[in-house]
């Protein structure tokens, strides 16, 4: 179960990782412990504590500083992993939210027209964008990271189209013609442009500096 420690932020792991691993090996593994660790990891990302930075004083302070010197070619691992998680964690959560909503819509017991089926999920996109940007901001992501996190469903649209095309060309029984490709491409393009705008619209209020960030 010690692999769950990898869910914690790198700075947190540097400070408490060894002790936590020691504690885990002394205890029997259980589902409750796993849930507690995951909840702890989410909390550690959302509420970073100064104790993880405070211990870096003195000789040990050089290591995190070097890790931040990406331009000098040092320590891309930890610092970059920290930055990436500010994007993909909220982005993935928002994708889940959006596609979860789509799944619920599919199963809702009413006759949906093609227009309804395409437009109703788009109404949720501002909320999804706001959700991603909010969590990215809580994880101290930059404005660019918040916007990229918010745009994750758009990347998913593009990926789905690519998968569909490959499937149509090589695995589908019926021939995949240019007309099929263009129909899929136009729907994907509209989803990317309109969806992207709606996602950024929702994310926009969370891209301004937080009140706490404006304080001197």
């Amino acid at each position: 179960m010690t692999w769950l420690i990898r869910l914690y932020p790198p700075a947190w792991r540097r400070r408490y990782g060894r002790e936590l691993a020691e504690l885990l090996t002394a205890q029997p593994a259980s589902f409750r412990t796993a849930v507690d660790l995951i909840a702890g990891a989410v909390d550690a990302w959302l509420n970073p504590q100064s104790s993880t930075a405070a211990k870096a004083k003195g000789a040990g302070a050089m290591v995190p500083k070097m890790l931040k010197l990406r331009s000098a070619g040092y320590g891309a691992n930890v610092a970059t992993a920290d930055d990436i998680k500010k994007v993909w964690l909220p982005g993935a959560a928002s994708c889940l939210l959006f596609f979860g909503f789509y799944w619920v819509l599919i199963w809702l017991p009413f006759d949906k027209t093609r227009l309804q089926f395409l437009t109703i999920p788009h109404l949720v996109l501002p909320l999804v964008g706001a959700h991603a940007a909010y969590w990215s901001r809580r994880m101290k992501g930059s404005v660019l990271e918040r916007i990229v996190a918010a745009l994750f469903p758009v990347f998913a649209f593009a990926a789905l189209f690519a998968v569909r095309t490959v499937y149509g060309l090589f695995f589908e029984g019926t021939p995949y013609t240019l007309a099929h490709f263009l129909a899929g491409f136009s729907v994907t393009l509209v989803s990317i442009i309109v969806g992207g705008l709606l996602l950024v619209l929702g994310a926009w209020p969370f891209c301004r500096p937080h009140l706490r960030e404006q304080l001197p």
Partner: protein
Amino acid sequence: MARRDDVADLEEFGRFGEPALLILVSLADSPKHGYAITEDIASFAGVRFGPGSLYGAIARLESRGLIEGLDTEDRRNPYQLTAVGAKALRARLASMQSVAKVGQRRLAKA
């Protein structure tokens, strides 16, 4: 007034408030490492916190200067109560004691 501030320190811990208080109580007599704290709390309070909750509370206590880690070569890093932590614990226990007294007095009258 200082006492109220110390009490507020623990109150802002949210769901980590209870583990934090019990960790302070556990460290009141001697420094302990994570596993020893868990076992000690289980023995005197009858609750066993998960490792995520335990270290969530430890991180908060340490960042507010209520406890501090002792440097050892061992993987199991012990923690000890600081003077600020002892003061906060005294204040919290006094506050709980006064609430308990009021409750018992009112129950006795009822």
